[in-house]
């Protein structure tokens, strides 16, 4: 009977082994691969112009097996185009109302699309022809449900080149509606150029701005409050705008897919006047009106207050002293008078001391007066400024290099392996006994807005003799 036991156990082991080997639960899946686009080459039997002509006075359903084709000229990725797919062919353009907010995923700009129109309705929204799912009872049409997009729209190849029609504002008319046009040498009107945003990004309200050509012809640019660029300020210069032309009642309107279609790069405005070039290309001579001291004591009027903001880890170098009565516009300043032995941190300001930045702050500025000298010219040095990032550890660097007049500094793009910018002390400072304004462009930086670590440090190069006054460190 021992043999029974052995047989039984062997059998058990065999059964166990076989069940285990067949019990594998796979969780690997065959991954779909990118398929090349194909053109279904459907037979097109209607032009977009003919389609629009179907609308007379009220919404009408398309009962024939009409097929149009066109290229997508709308892009809802930035949120300005909303629930609308606009296509155009050689005869014109037309928009479809579709209940989707990510049409760019299936119908990106430049994709050829066929539309099987039977069953859809043609309507008009204040003279703009729209195609939709049904009569909305108010003259226009309802949204085509996401589930039915595939019933009507057939995808063709992507990447079709769309050349916008170059046209003058004065020549625009209804037949160009929902086509991509290019207006050359236009500008935002004086009261808006460089001053207002495309729309109200905070309240999410649509915005209307106005473009004009040099003959005084004007056209509205409408922007959704939900567009990603709603809060961007419109450019001040003159240039070309690519947009979808639309009409609302009797007025002309433009709809842009993205701000890169607004290329107003020429600083000469119509009629010869020039706008101030954008601030990011010239050095300001005074800080903006809403400038605030970066930290208490940043005007150096009360030196004790300033010293209280200095990170005690680095301290304040002995050659950094209060300069009574020598300040910008009178009052006191900070003087650097001495010859540093190393590339010193003169001081670092605690992050906890920083002021609340003004809304949209883009710059830190301070005044400098004086010069650096050295017995051996190769020892001539300048200053370098560190602005801490929000992680408290890393920082961006602004190098003053040669400094003799107002300067707008950009952060060093030489990033070290540890993530920090690179200090560069080369250069000489000589302001010819005048105050110059040094402005740091922090708009794109991740400035340390927390209460930990530091925010702002001034460094000096070694061996050079400094005789510098520094005053009024502000953020604006």
């Amino acid at each position, binding site marked *: 009977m021992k043999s029974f036991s052995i047989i039984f156990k062997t059998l*058990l082991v065999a059964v166990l082994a076989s069940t285990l080997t067949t019990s594998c639960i796979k969780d690997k899946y065959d991954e*779909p691969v990118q398929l090349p686009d194909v053109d279904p080459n459907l037979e097109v039997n209607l032009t977009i112009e003919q389609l629009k002509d179907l609308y007379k006075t009220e919404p009408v359903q398309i009962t024939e097996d009409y097929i149009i084709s066109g290229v997508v000229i709308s892009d809802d990725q930035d949120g300005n185009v909303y629930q609308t797919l606009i296509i155009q062919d050689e005869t014109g353009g037309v928009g479809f109302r579709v209940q989707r907010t*990510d049409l760019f995923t299936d119908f990106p700009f430049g994709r050829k699309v066929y539309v099987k129109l039977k069953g859809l309705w043609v309507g008009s929204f204040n003279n703009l022809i729209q195609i939709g799912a049904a009569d909305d009872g108010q003259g226009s049409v309802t949204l085509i449900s*996401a*589930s039915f997009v595939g019933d009507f729209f057939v995808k063709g190849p992507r990447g079709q080149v769309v050349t916008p029609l170059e046209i003058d504002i004065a020549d625009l008319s209804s037949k160009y509606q929902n086509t991509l046009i290019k207006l050359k040498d236009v500008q935002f009107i004086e009261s808006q150029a460089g001053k207002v945003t495309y729309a109200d*990004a905070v309240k999410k309200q649509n915005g209307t701005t106005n473009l004009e050509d040099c003959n005084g012809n004007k056209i509205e640019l409408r922007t959704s409050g939900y567009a990603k660029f709603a809060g961007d300020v419109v450019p001040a210069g003159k240039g070309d705008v690519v947009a979808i032309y639309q009409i609302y009642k009797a007025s002309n309107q433009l709809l842009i897919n993205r701000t890169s279609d607004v290329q107003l790069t020429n600083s000469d405005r119509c009629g010869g006047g020039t706008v101030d070039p954008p601030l990011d290309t010239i050095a300001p001579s005074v800080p903006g009106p809403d400038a605030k001291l970066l930290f208490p004591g940043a005007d150096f009027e009360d030196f004790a207050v300033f010293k209280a903001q200095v990170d005690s880890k680095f301290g304040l170098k002995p050659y950094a002293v209060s300069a009574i009565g020598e300040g910008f516009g009178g009052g006191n300043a900070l003087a650097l008078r001495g010859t540093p032995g190393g590339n010193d941190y003169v001081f670092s300001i605690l992050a906890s001391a920083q002021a609340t930045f003004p809304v949209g702050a883009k710059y830190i500025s301070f005044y400098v007066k004086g010069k650096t000298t050295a017995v051996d010219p190769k020892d001539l040095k300048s200053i370098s400024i560190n602005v801490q990032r929000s992680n408290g550890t890393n920082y961006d660097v602004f190098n003053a290099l040669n400094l003799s007049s107002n300067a707008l500094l950009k952060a060093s793009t030489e990033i070290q392996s540890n993530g920090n910018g690179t200090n560069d002390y080369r250069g000489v400072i000589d302001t010819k006994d005048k105050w110059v304004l040094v402005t740091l462009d922090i708009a794109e930086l*991740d400035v340390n*807005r927390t209460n930990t670590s530091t925010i702002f440090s001034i460094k000096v190069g070694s061996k050079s003799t400094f005789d510098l006054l520094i005053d009024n460190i502000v953020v604006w």
Partner: protein
Amino acid sequence: MVKRLIFVLTCYASTSGLVFGQEAIDTTRPVAVDELIENQLTFDEAPIVSLDDNDVSQGISSQLTAGRDPFFSAATFNWGAARYRIRGYDNDNFITYMNGVPMDLLDRGGSSFFLWSGLNDVLRSRDNSLGLKPTSYSFGEIGGQFSIDSRASKQWKQLRVSYASTNRNYNNRIMATYNTGLTKSGWAFSVSASRRWAHEGYVPGTFYDGWSYFASAEKVFNKSHSLAFTTFGAPTKSGSAAGTVTELQELAGSNYYNPYWGYQSGKVRNSRVNKSHQPTFILTHEYSPSNKLNIMTAASFTTGIRKSSALDWYNVSDPRPDYYRNMPSYIKEDYYRNLLIDRIKADPSLIQVNWDRMYDVNLNNTETIKNVNGIQGNDVTGKRSRYIIEQRVSKVQRVNLNSVVNATIDEHLNFSGGISYQYQKNRLYKEVGDLLGGDFYVNLNQFAERDYPGSNANQNDLNHPNQIVKVGDKYGYDYDMVFHKAAAWGQLQGKWNQLDAFLSAEISHSTYFRDGNYRNGLFVDNSFGKSEVKNFLNYGVKGGATYKINGRNYVYANASYSTRAPYFQDIFVSPRTRNSAVGDPKNEKIASVESGYVLNTPKVKARLSGYLTKFNDLTKTMTFYHDVYRNNVNYTLTDIDKIHFGGELGIEAKVYKGLTASFAAALGRYYFTSRQKATVTVDNSSDVLASNEVIYSKFFKMGGTPQTAATLGLNYRSPKYWFVSANLNYFDDMWLDFNPIRRTWSAVESVPNPSDNYDQIIQQEKLKRQLTLDVYGGYSWKINNIMKGLKKSHFIYMNVGINNITNNKNLVTGGYEQLRFDFENSDINKFPSRYFFAYGINYFFSISYKL
């Protein structure tokens, strides 16, 4: 949908002593615990306590212990299908000890059953104690306490191999166990392993893949001294099922419609996969220098992960088929709505996940990400995934130290007491699980991007702006929850001729805090680093007495009052984004009394009891996605008071020879007794949307359990080593969990009162009562009886259970009103309730061989 079907087979057999004649103890028990563990993994709202009937009498012969209590058997086995919860209590009112250490979860209370899932063979030595009864190892919780002793010396010497087949959440199970028993050298070893799997479980699109392992070694140095080391784990992976709305269940033609899965290249893929593996190590030292003193000291360490996957996406449409905008009811035009309905009926895959489309979007979405990791000019171009699989990960480390002393003071008095220290750290974060064809994902908060354009607010981690993440990289949120708890308790127990009495007390101190690993762009100053440390001092007292009228009739009464710290998730209003917490959190207060009568005769066993429990000052935070805010909205409810009271009856009587009849019934009432206050916050803003908004929640019922349940059973056991039994179960007074938002003034402000709509908005849905029928049978075969001459005893056991034999597929075991409300039109059907259903007819068959 619901796998709360508990397998019973032999519970009646064991309740009345000898089972198959040959062996008193050993029967095949596909244990309840097992099923429950799996359920916990599969369903978010885990119910009941997990218990089984394994009972080794603990020497106190004064009264029936829970395992042999007919009511307890019914509650755990027959009512599991309806997710019956004992006394309506949540999981955190029960506690389980393993080899001398408490196995509760400090983050949310309750026990971590999933840790030992699938190890039925070695978890049979148990002490179950229900309600307020005293135990020798813990002060306990008000619902009950359970102690599992899996040390090697407690395992019967045997080799056991079994196979089971079922059509529930898994299809197959194999299990093997070998125990040496205590050898002459003083050593004992035990090993056990099992595997459970299904390519597709009862619910479409679910799968199951669970392994379990266990090993224990123990050295008994001498009579007074032993040391045991035990380790176990259960690496498990399973596909989930969802509670869904009636509209889609009707379209799919099944109450088990599961929106989580879809076809990928023709193969079923589930988007919600749970994975867990948290190995546990326990060292247990027992010292008993005399039979009057016993000191057990144990330490445990648990480490590992739990992950659950889900779809995530960036500025593209919601891909979930049960999202309300994707359902036919969202289409306004009758023609198109009906057309879609017809299409879905012809092609049900239209209401499943469309994997291929997500791949298509990702494969064709080439983008350039600027200034990656915050480095100017560091631009990366590639296929940016718009849809991904996210893994919500919880990485756990837990240490428990516990020491318990039991001392006999004199012939009447016993002292028990103990001290414990518990530490737990959970790191919670999301990681990229699958890029679905793309090259990378970007660690940005699309909701903040929309709300605060042109700022850094959209950075999930300002320390790494514009971070590109790939499979396995963390993103979204990343924070630690850190817990410490120290407790001490003591208990005096007296036993006299006609009276047993006890008095016990506990004191504990617990602390916890959040420690953020991300600096969230929205909460620059309040997300990175340590939060304020929350401190709680709690205590409990309880006492009771049993009057022994005679050896067969007992009456007892117990009472307790305790306080309890609120849970981390309920205090931190939005831990995913920031350190903000309820300012002055209150401790929960729990008062409970119970009383009963027990009859214990050779022919009839019965217990009749009543209880009343009041919970005061509970705090709870509920989080849900709100698509108007396009964000997670957090409702922090405070001042929650509730009451649970009711009666329990269990009777078991030997009717004729091997025939036993049993009846059990629970009649309870569980409802809220206060108007709760809601403070509403959003993940993406520090704005408080509402502060102390009154929720008109008074008299609303607790959902998630039948408040009335009954079972009638018949069991016949043949002297020829087989048995059959049948149970008829009845469930009533089941309520849907309610949405507090609908019970506010702002929800009904513009609704005419009286009106049908008004009533619909504020009334709570009562679920239909149900009947189910279960049958069981078993046979035990001693091979030696046929094959004479075998040296050792060989047994084969076979058991089968068929549950819900009438195939009732309409038993709603739970559900909830969606935490949304259509304030605009006051239409409750815009966000309809979601329901879970118990399985229709289902079976469990097992065969095991024991040497």
